[in-house]
């Protein structure tokens, strides 16, 4: 009975178990417990939520390990944490701390502008952001076990997540309908690993779970992303920047499960208080667009 850890199936399978759920950003044990109580399937342990990272400016790095440990010990649901793009040591460190998933994230300042992590090397699974199918399949090629849209984090504006999810879904549909002789050209055009496209065409879907992230601020936003074919949602700044995080968190979880029950979502959306303020994307300068980090 040979035991194999860190296999593709074990790493991808972990994300399969999160489907239909909400993963919430938290910055301490207290928030982690509120998230768990609200029905989150996992928490993302951070030093600052994306909207605060945006406001603070400067270099955003991996969270202080004390925060990661505090959150890890406070809840029984899985704990994720973010490492900078290409930061091998931050990733190894988070793996050593026993986090259940690492987000190689554009929300933090990239450590490497050329190379992403070779995620196949690790026992711990990774989630990565993507704007289109090329980016998504490159990350899968490097060993990512889960995807999420990049959206535009910390803006409370859903428009970029919608753009990314719609584009990825459309590109998947296109690949599925292609003939053998068209596939290599598509791989070239997308900058996609050929074997990942072959896999998509054979199975009719992405080989890993694909969540929505970046700008989800209301229960209706979460339901919209599910409607567009997301497997689940990440909510960053939205919950703990709202007036009543407990109620807000629960409402987002319910809206994600029952994304097609519109009268329920209408009920859930009542009296939630003020949602986070939000930023119009066109007012962001190029240097402030997190989604353009990574390639």
């Amino acid at each position, binding site marked *: 009975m040979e035991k194999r*850890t860190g*296999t593709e199936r*074990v790493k991808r*399978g*972990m994300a399969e*178990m999160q489907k*239909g759920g909400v993963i919430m950003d938290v910055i301490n044990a207290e928030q982690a417990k509120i998230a768990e109580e609200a029905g989150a399937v996992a928490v993302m342990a951070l030093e600052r939520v994306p909207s605060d990272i945006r406001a603070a400016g400067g270099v955003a790095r991996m969270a202080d390990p004390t925060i990661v440990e505090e959150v890890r010990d406070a809840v029984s649901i899985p704990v994720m944490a973010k490492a900078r793009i290409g930061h091998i040591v931050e990733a190894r460190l988070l793996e050593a701390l026993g986090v*259940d998933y690492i987000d190689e994230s554009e929300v933090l300042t990239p450590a490497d502008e050329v190379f992403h992590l070779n995620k196949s090397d690790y026992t711990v699974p990774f989630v990565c952001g993507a704007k289109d199918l090329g980016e998504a399949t490159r990350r899968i090629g490097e060993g990512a076990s889960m995807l999420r849209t990049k959206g535009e984090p910390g803006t409370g504006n859903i428009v970029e997540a919608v753009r990314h999810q719609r584009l990825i879904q459309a590109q998947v549909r296109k690949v599925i309908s292609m003939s053998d002789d068209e596939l290599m050209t598509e791989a070239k055009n997308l900058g996609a690993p050929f074997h990942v496209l072959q896999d998509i065409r054979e199975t009719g879907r992405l080989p890993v779970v694909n969540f929505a992230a970046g700008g989800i601020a209301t229960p209706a936003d979460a339901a919209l992303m599910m409607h567009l074919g997301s497997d689940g949602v990440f909510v960053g700044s939205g919950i703990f920047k709202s007036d009543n995080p407990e109620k807000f968190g629960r409402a987002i979880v*319910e809206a994600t499960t029952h994304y097609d029950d519109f009268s329920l979502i209408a009920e859930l959306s009542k009296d939630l208080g003020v949602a986070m303020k939000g930023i119009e994307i066109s007012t962001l300068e190029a240097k402030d667009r997190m989604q353009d980090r990574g390639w």
Partner: protein
Amino acid sequence: MINIGVLALQGAVREHVRALEAPDVNVVVVKKALQLEEIDGLVFPGGESTTMRRLINLYGFYEPLKQFAREGKPVFGTCAGAILMAKEIAGQPEPHLSVMDMTVERNAFGRQRESFEAYLPMKHVGEDIEAVFIRAPIIQSVGPEVEVLAEYDGQIVAAQEGPFVACSFHPELTEDDRFHQYFVQVVRDSIKVGVTAE
């Protein structure tokens, strides 16, 4: 036709639907408690047990699920599903649905980096079952009416009590459908017994 439901509050639903497929099986994705009336057997999928339990309460599934089990209708729980079924959960004051006489320990093998896969022999099912353990629980102990189906490293990882089947791994993540088809047979047999009893 027999109707088998997969509880679809959260988790790996699609994988179970695929693994249950058989010519005489109609698989029902169960999102509302009323649907329990249409089905002959039910699968609790893998996912996050804390989350699923919260949703069970929220959507009025708690009493209907207990009633489903009280009627002796077959239930199959994998990983989080097994935790929902257990009569006792180590270190937790209250169980969830308490339908099967066993004590489970959550995350017993450790965190995600300790998650693993291995081949196991399983009683009534096969000698080389592919088992994927993800932040998996173990079944610490079972009551007198419970049959142990499989062990890994001296720990119970699959068991059955009449119509109730539970395992701590994820047969739904493999292409090997033998365990699911074993459960489908449990459902078929329960219907036959029901007919004779009438």
